[in-house]
């Protein structure tokens, strides 16, 4: 996260008081830091296009009722029609318009994934921060706990929980909570590793000399320095959560009727894949599109926030 910003020539005036220059330099650098990040992100063309596509998709699905004539429950007279102008994604055997269903499914899937990202990032960050900051025995215990959860395939835990919690009712909020309960491990590890090195920095010592409490050091001094990895990881969690939720719903342990999800739509479409392939193609393509755009945005954010880090994706 170190960006060398060359102070503008007009700031280094020989006649100005030294103190004034450094403080003005500091404010300029702060502003230019975020401006630099923004500029670097905007230079990543694929990431910008992806962000636009993703946002358009989210807006279209959120406001589907206002611009599309059918809803996911409307039954039209067209049964099992292929894609046409009237039904761009075709219809199913009961006459539902697939575009309306896909929009409804995308809305649920994206909202669940965003909720998972927010919840798991918040919890994982605090968990990792405490573990890394305090270190010692607490750290060992907390990280061993994380390792233990990782010894069991997370999909198996998700299936177990999805089948049992709330009687397997398939409420999107419950599914989001279940997914979040397993998604915080990665960010906790990253933040813990970061805090182990950050806590040794001079500015932490300085803050402590000035009488700052541990709480203040963690939240006001260390966390802002970890914001890059947190944001990047949160975007990756969104992509991973979309894939996990749709997989869970596909298997029948995630979101269920009357709510809908893209995974559920693929499962329905697969049963008639040879006769009505569009029912299978479109929901899956939308999943790929959402996950792909988020992954590209994450990649752009990584390059923008942390140009020195290796471009490795997990």
């Amino acid at each position, binding site marked *: 996260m170190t960006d060398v910003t060359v102070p503008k020539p007009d700031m280094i005036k020989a006649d100005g008081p030294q103190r004034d220059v450094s403080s003005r330099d500091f404010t300029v650098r702060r502003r230019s830091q975020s401006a630099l990040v923004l500029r670097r992100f905007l230079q990543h063309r694929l990431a910008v296009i992806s962000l636009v596509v993703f946002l358009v998709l989210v807006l279209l699905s959120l406001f589907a009722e206002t611009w599309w004539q059918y809803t996911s429950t409307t039954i039209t007279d067209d049964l099992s029609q292929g894609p046409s102008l009237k039904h761009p994604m075709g219809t199913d055997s009961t006459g539902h318009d697939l575009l309306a269903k896909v929009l409804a499914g995308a809305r649920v899937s994206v909202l669940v994934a965003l909720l998972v990202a927010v919840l798991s990032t918040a919890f994982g960050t605090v968990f990792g921060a405490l573990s890394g900051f305090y270190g010692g025995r607490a750290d060992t215990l907390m990280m061993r706990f994380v390792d*233990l*959860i*990782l*010894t*069991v*395939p*997370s*999909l*198996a*835990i998700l*299936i*177990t*929980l*999805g*089948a*049992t*919690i709330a*009687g397997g009712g398939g409420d999107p909020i419950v599914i989001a909570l279940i997914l979040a309960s397993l998604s915080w491990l990665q960010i906790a590890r990253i933040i813990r590793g970061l805090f182990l090195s950050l806590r040794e920095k001079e500015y932490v010592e300085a803050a402590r000399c000035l009488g700052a409490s541990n709480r203040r050091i963690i939240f006001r001094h260390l966390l802002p320095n970890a914001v890059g990895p947190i944001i990047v990881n949160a975007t990756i969690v969104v*992509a991973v959560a979309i*894939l996990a939720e*749709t*997989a869970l719903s*596909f*298997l*029948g*342990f995630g979101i269920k009727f009357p709510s809908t999800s893209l*995974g559920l739509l*693929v*499962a329905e479409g*697969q049963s008639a*894949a*040879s006769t009505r*392939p569009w029912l*299978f193609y479109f929901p*899956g393509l939308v*999943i*790929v599109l959402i*996950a*792909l755009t*988020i*992954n*590209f945005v994450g*990649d752009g954010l990584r390059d923008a926030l942390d140009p020195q880090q*290796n*471009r*490795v*994706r*997990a």
Partner: protein
Amino acid sequence: MYAFALRRLLISVPLLLVSSMIVYALVHFAGDPLRDLEGRNPPVPPAVLEERRRLLGLDKSLPEQYWNWLTGIVTGDFGPSVKGIDIGADLSRRLGVTMRMVILAILLAVILAMVVGVLSAVKQYSGVDYTATLLGFIALSMPVFWLAALLKEFLAIRINQAIGKTVVYTIGESTPGLEGGLLTKLADQAGHLVLPTIALAAVNYAAWSRYQRSSMLDVLNSDFIRLARAKGLSRRRVMVRHALRCALIPLTTVVALDAGAILGGAVITERVFAWHGMGEMLLNAANDQDVNRLLAWLMVSAVIVVLFNLVADLLYAYLDPRIRYA
């Protein structure tokens, strides 16, 4: 090395023990093995519920239940199933079926990741590199169930039509009731393996090839590679013997870490291709709220993940001569 492997195995015992506690608590608090009986209409007589409770040992305290279950597992008894299935025998048959696919998929994905990663590192910022990156991103964003179904419903039929007879199968892990010698059976199993293995490998190679690319780039820029070239070794020899060997170490770590995710992916591909393996067992057990079958599955998968990590540790020593497990 044997001493090291043995020591590592011994260390995994407490790990698995604690893991078994967590798994037991999870399944115990999340599931209700009596739900299917309790929800029935007309209601099941209380005596039946009582009998089921006694059969599953639910009338005892939780620590006692756990202890009974644990001592059973050590002797190979996974406890009673609500469906009356012999869990141990069922599990061992299914394990073979699933591991066949999982191990092949890992091998395929590792080879793909190595080739793609090395190529795009050696030819950094070339067309090959960009194509590989784009393909990697697409694979990373591909839901495994959709890819598997796509292969099954659309690719398989085309292939079989093109060849003129069924070569790749889309249902089951082998043809039931097949007569013939060992060779016929092997060919049949291979035909069933192709598509699920490709689907499982495709979604996993992407992240691995990115790791391989960046670790290869790191190695290629290091001094010992320049020295190897300077002392006159051929480019090919430097790449394979010096650079690749070194660059494989991070990949080993990542593959071992992803072992659990691959088992999860196998559950999905098995479902799509209607295999009677571990995946089907997990899904059925979860549907039936069959506590002991779920527990058996979770414990076996934990053991597999631990074993994968052990293999990774042993591979480090082979790849990195500085590591000695004497």
